[in-house]
């Protein structure tokens, strides 16, 4: 995790069995040959080096001085959406940390000065200079909410802060979703506030690219700002923000607020009967689990122990360590919300929940290797189409954006939508494309 | 050609050179051939080793024979050959109920083996009504199909381990019989020569099997046996049409039910039973119960199989042309004397592998070829034997006619079947060349293989792939 070095993971890397479990979903979940792969990187590039295990080996080779940086090595390391599917499949059976090693390998590249890649630099520079990833002036960050009647959490006490995130705030095609989110939550009586132009980037891109210093700086600023608000909870509708706020911020500093995803809040409101849906959707949809809402949304519990061996060579952690295996990701909440919508039929893809196939957008892949991101989206769109659904629904702006590109590129008849759009429609507001 | 030093080379076997005693191995029975230079009745593996060394030193060729006469395919083609007759090697070394395995020398016949197995509650896996005097091991070495497809896990079954004298003169044991330890030492640790694979990274038994004695001479083999049924019935389903029988065979194969499972046509049924008036085709399916709840096993399997049959709108017959199930079962599983096909002078076979769903194509081939060749279709018998759990079907046409005519027809039938994609996995007769037609690399690979184990080419070099291919 943060601040670790490859040395810290030498034993894990050595203990990789090269079994390739990281390439498939947990094997008992393989349902067809067509959708049997779970790792976007190896699905496209095929060399073993692109798998989670392959990157562990590269880490070991680097540590042992067997290899030195090269353009191709950096390509291998960064042609990866850091989706964490390898981590889940490995940890279904092992007590290893492939995703942490993958992150540490990237962090090592950054520390050694060979990364970020040129394509990543503008993003990180933008974070430094503008506190957002889209190279937009700070004051534009609140423009999405101009016409909304919503509290400024800096000015008024609120129960719940809506953390819109850079993409929902700044991408014109996405801003409507942020507005809809606010309207829906307010209609259910949630005491909601926003930060507007004072909202900072969550720092997620810096983390996934491996710039730990920048990430920590961002996280500290955010934690401090959010802690000062006194809100009970922070709700995000961006899975990327959610993932990092929930799982990585506790590694930096303690927070005095709870982090929830909008789907969790919606599910709670549905359960409480605070949202009543009257308008039938009459659609068959399929749902894409975003990586950072699903398998990568477990709060990381810092562990400061040592490895110990008992029974000669049984490796255990002292004190016991709680591994993040994707068990407690947000899988049910979005499905509960969808199940509550009238006239909507959910037909599932084969790769879902903790072994969902990534959209391809994350980990800096979209900016540095757009062809890889698009190929990954195409793969997911193909799977969505195979369900017979008319609509591909998700809960992450990055996923929605990349999958939309995939749909367009494939000439697919699928429509993409955010879960909040369906909710709003069922409540009687807005129209669906 | 003289055979000086041969008697000394085989210590316990006897060498025969009298012409009248050697005629069984050469010309005759409507077949062309030559008299061997000698027949060596080997009684031990040492005899075979001695003979092989002698043959190498003297530039002679060996033709191995295991069954009693009349010999069908094992006929000397050229002068100077020495026949290695193993039919006197008749020890049944083990009949092992616990492991369901027998280990017998190569001269043991089906009737001899079955007698020994019956005493311990086992039965041999038999081909369709083998002729009396037929060597069990020779039959298995030829991959002759056996009657119970469910029990066949590999086309090599029921053959397991073997002792072989290679053309190089080296004695070798295959599968787990190869060691460590002697057979006795292996038995002491509970082994029973049941794994045919290896040793290590080659399966020599597969190379010997199907080679018609061209790779080595087997002196003994272990073989899978079945439990002897406590209850055993035969379900018979006559039909004028092959198609429903094929669907039923697949149904049974996919259920893994039943024991014997085969289809015979009216001609073969009549020849086997001696009873005329048989239906065009009949599916015969054995159902058995063994040591565990035998009646219950028979009951549920019968119910299941009858369900499959009734789904085709058919019903099991208690008898066919007055022949009941018990008698029919006896006929198909027991050695036949006199042999139901008659002597080699009275018939010839053509057989190949295909899949059951393609069988009707080949029946049409038979019909059309008979017509074209103006041959009486009623003199051709058909036998369809599902193998390998129903994945493969042995398709056999027997032409009942004087040898020359039979040979003409089998050639014509084989040519026509080849054109439809018949796979001649066991090349024999006057159609063996079709198996290798347009396969020069395969032939070359077989030749290179033979060179490894029989560098001087002493073992039956008349097998087609050993010859020059034009």
């Amino acid at each position: 995790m943060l601040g670790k070095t490859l040395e810290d993971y030498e034993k894990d890397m050595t203990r990789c069995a090269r079994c390739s479990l990281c390439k498939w979903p947990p094997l008992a979940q393989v349902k067809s040959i067509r959708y049997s792969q779970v790792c976007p990187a190896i699905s496209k590039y095929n060399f073993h080096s692109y798998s989670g295990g392959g990157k562990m080996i590269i880490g070991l080779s680097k540590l042992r001085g067997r290899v030195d940086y090269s353009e191709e090595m950096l390509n291998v390391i960064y042609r990866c959406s850091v989706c964490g599917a390898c981590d889940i499949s490995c940890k279904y059976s092992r007590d290893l940390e492939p995703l942490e090693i993958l992150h540490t390998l990237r962090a090592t590249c950054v520390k050694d000065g060979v990364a970020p890649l040129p394509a990543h630099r503008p993003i990180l520079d933008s974070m430094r200079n503008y506190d957002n990833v889209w190279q937009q002036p700070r004051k534009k960050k609140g423009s999405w909410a101009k016409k909304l009647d919503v509290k400024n959490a800096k000015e008024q006490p609120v129960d719940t802060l809506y953390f819109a995130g850079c993409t929902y705030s700044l991408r014109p095609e996405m801003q409507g979703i942020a507005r809809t989110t606010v309207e829906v939550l307010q209609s259910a009586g949630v005491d909601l506030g926003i930060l507007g132009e004072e909202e900072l980037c969550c720092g997620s891109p810096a983390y996934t690219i491996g710039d730990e210093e920048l990430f920590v700086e961002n996280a500290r600023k955010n934690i401090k700002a959010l802690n000062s608000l006194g809100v009970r909870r922070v709700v995000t509708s961006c899975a990327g923000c959610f993932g990092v706020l929930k799982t990585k911020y506790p590694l930096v500093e303690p927070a005095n607020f709870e982090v929830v995803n909008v789907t969790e809040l919606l599910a709670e409101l549905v359960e409480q009967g605070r949202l009543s849906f009257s308008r039938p959707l009459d659609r068959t949809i399929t749902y894409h689990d975003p990586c950072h809402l699903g398998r990568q949304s477990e709060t990381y519990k810092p562990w400061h122990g040592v490895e110990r061996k008992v029974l000669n060579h049984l490796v255990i952690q002292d004190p016991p360590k709680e591994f993040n295996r994707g068990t407690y990701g947000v899988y049910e909440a979005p499905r509960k919300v969808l199940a509550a919508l009238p006239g909507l039929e959910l037909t599932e893809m084969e790769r879902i929940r903790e072994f969902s196939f990534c959209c391809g957008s994350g980990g800096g892949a979209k900016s540095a290797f757009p062809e890889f991101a698009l190929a990954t989206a195409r793969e997911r769109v193909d799977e969505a189409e195979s369900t017979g659904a008319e609509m591909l629904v998700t809960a992450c702006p990055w996923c929605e954006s990349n999958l939309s590109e995939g749909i367009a590129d494939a000439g697919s008849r699928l429509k993409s939508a955010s879960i909040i759009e369906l909710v709003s429609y069922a409540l009687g507001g807005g129209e669906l494309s | 050609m003289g055979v000086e030093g041969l008697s000394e080379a085989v210590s316990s076997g006897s060498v025969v050179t009298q012409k009248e005693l050697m005629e069984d191995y050469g010309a005759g029975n409507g077949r062309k051939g030559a008299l061997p230079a000698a027949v060596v009745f080997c009684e031990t593996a040492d005899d075979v080793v001695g003979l092989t060394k002698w043959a190498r030193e003297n530039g002679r060729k060996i033709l191995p024979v295991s069954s009693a006469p009349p010999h069908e395919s094992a006929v000397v083609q050229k002068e100077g050959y020495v026949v290695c007759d193993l039919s006197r090697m008749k020890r049944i070394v083990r009949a092992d109920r616990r492991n369901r395995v027998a280990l017998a020398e190569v001269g043991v016949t089906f009737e001899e083996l079955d007698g020994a197995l019956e005493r311990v509650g086992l039965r041999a896996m038999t081909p369709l009504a083998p002729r009396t005097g037929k060597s069990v091991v020779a039959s298995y070495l030829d991959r002759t199909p056996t009657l119970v497809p469910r029990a066949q896990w590999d086309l090599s079954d029921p053959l397991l381990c073997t002792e072989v004298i290679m053309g190089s003169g080296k004695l070798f044991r295959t599968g787990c019989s190869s060691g460590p330890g002697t057979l006795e030492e292996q038995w002491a640790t509970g082994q029973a020569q049941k794994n045919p694979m290896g040793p290590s990274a080659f399966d020599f038994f597969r190379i010997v099997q199907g080679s018609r004695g061209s790779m080595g001479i087997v002196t003994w083999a272990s073989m899978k046996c079945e439990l002897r049924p406590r209850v055993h019935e035969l379900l018979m389903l006559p039909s004028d049409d092959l198609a429903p029988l094929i669907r039923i065979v697949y149904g049974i194969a996919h259920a893994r039910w039943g024991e014997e499972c085969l289809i015979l046509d009216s001609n073969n049924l009549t020849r086997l039973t001696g009873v005329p008036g048989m239906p065009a085709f009949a599916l015969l399916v054995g159902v058995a119960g063994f040591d565990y709840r035998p009646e219950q096993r028979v009951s549920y399997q019968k119910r299941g199989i009858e369900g499959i049959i009734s789904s085709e709108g058919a019903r099991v017959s208690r008898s066919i042309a007055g022949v009941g199930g018990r008698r029919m079962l006896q006929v198909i599983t027991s050695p036949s004397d006199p042999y139901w096909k008659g002597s080699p002078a009275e018939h010839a076979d053509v057989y190949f592998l295909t899949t059951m769903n393609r069988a009707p194509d080949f029946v049409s081939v038979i019909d059309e070829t008979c017509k074209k060749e103006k041959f009486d279709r009623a003199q051709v018998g058909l036998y369809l034997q599902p193998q390998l759990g129903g994945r493969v079907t042995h398709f056999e046409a027997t032409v009942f006619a004087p040898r020359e005519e039979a040979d003409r027809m089998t050639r014509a039938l084989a040519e026509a079947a080849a054109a439809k994609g018949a796979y001649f996995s066991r090349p024999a007769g006057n159609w063996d060349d079709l198996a290798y037609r347009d396969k020069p690399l395969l032939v070359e690979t077989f030749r290179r293989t033979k060179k490894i184990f029989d560098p001087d080419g002493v073992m039956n070099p008349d097998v087609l792939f050993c010859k020059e291919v034009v």
Partner: protein
Amino acid sequence: MTTEVVETVDLPEAVYEELKGIVGQDNISREPAVLDTYAFQYIAELLTGHSYLGRPCAVVMPASTEEVQAIVRLCNRESIPYKAVSTGWGAYGGSPAPGILQLDLRRMNRILDIDTDNMIAVVEPYVVGATLQAEAFKLGLNCHIVGAGSNTSILASATSVMGQGTTGVSTGFSNRNLLGFEWVMPDGELLRVGCFEDSDEWFTGDGPGPSLRGIIRGFAGAFGGLGVFTKCAVKLYPWFGPSRIELTGVTPEYDVEMPKNHIAYLIAFPGWEEMKEFGNRVGEAEIAFSMCHNAPAPMIAAMMESNMAFYDLWKGGLAEHFKYSLEVVIAAQSEDELAFQEGVLRDIIRRTKGREIISSKNDLRYYVDLTLGLGRIVRQAGPMATLRTIPPLAQFMIKSLMAGKRPSMFAKTLYISLVKQHLNARGIFRFGGSFWTSMGALTSWDCCIENAKEGEQIKRKWIDEGVLMDDGAENAWGGLYESGCYGHLEELGVYDQSDPICVDHGIDFVVDTVEATINKHLAMSLNATGDPFHAWYSPHVMNYHDHVASIKEEFDRANLSDASVYINRSIVESLMKMIEDGGGNFNFREIMDLANDEFVQTGPGTETEELAG
């Protein structure tokens, strides 16, 4: 940071360009970081002393037989040693010698055909057990999946390696399931073996006449030492279950909806002899879909989400309940068949003094057995051991019940692991990181049990030496094949590949077991692959090396298809002489090191005629 010296062999630029022309720019790499991910292999440390084998000169990923053939021909023209891998798991996929051209067959990943009626599948090298099974289930069929797991290549198991799986009693054995195959021979010639050139069907690979299946492999395959297999057909088997087995829950614990008429059991016995009897009877009764022995340690580990959770339970002595146990699955297609199978199974359990510990059908039995089990521990181990057992057991039971898990759920976990072979890494790799296997001959079930008994004794010594994990010593794995015609029980030794004591001495345990199989006539160990083992074993097994080496020499005259795990006559025979000269006293580690050195210097690319001369 240390800097390891890596011996490298460069591919001539012109050859690289030509290879690029064959496979395309995106499918070739000579980047050290990429190459190292092929040199790093499971159990490499036991062979080379560290985690890596020799680094290849390049990796190519052909997409078709034609590309494979072009590569192999180029290798022959340029005298470049090569080796193909499918999923590439294990040191057998690489070579101790640097500079081989590695063919990664991952792009050849199609199921070319499933012939439903005739129960045959035709596959390319990268089709794995999980994918073929998933597709076969949809058609009411199943395939044999080797114990290594459903992440392994169907083709590699059938043509080139070895492998036996948990459902072998009803789905056979990989060698025996091979039908037709397509073979790019070591010199680049393309040979299609079997019927499909005549019929477009692949239903057999035998004949015409002899079977070349006997050349390409035996019990073990050539491990990439005899060219490249690009397609093969395998037998499929009837599947009496649904088109998909539905799992519920989230990793790491899935619950399974048991298919109708399928029942999983864990049955324990008083000792080995009863297990012998039971196995023989179950085999001949032909009632089992699966019959398998997992020792308590891997079985408990497979149920637990982590090593820590395993340890909590293990230290309490739970294993005492089922040290001698077998897992059985029955799978019937009708209720009356199920009644027959259940009835026969109960008869056999009764006759062999077995105890049904858990089943997917019955929760009550577990509690009864547990009560009786405590009584047994009191009798056998005394009250203190019993007291030690109670807290973790009680905690486990309470935790399980609170989580809504009834004992039948554990039987269901067993069921799905036996059917899908997906928990092997959890059951064996997670403990210390690695394991190696030993003994494990394919032989009669009686002798399999003798192997297990001997293996346990030998392993105890190496546990006491601190080389292997203390898994209770008894860690035999295996089961029955082909309705019990033969079985196998291999003794697994768990170690930590990052621990020097394991790296230095892990092989010693294997050596002891090999010695026992020779001296005590326990049938040929599955370890008998590679030159050092050939040298040791061959004199005891009809000098088989001579014939295997002859095959290699005949079909790979240029000696380019990497034979590091297959055979090299000159190395085997020089090691044999060494062993003989030493009067049978020798240090196997030294022999292995010598063999490696020799191989690196003279192995790949050395013409066999020269060696023979």
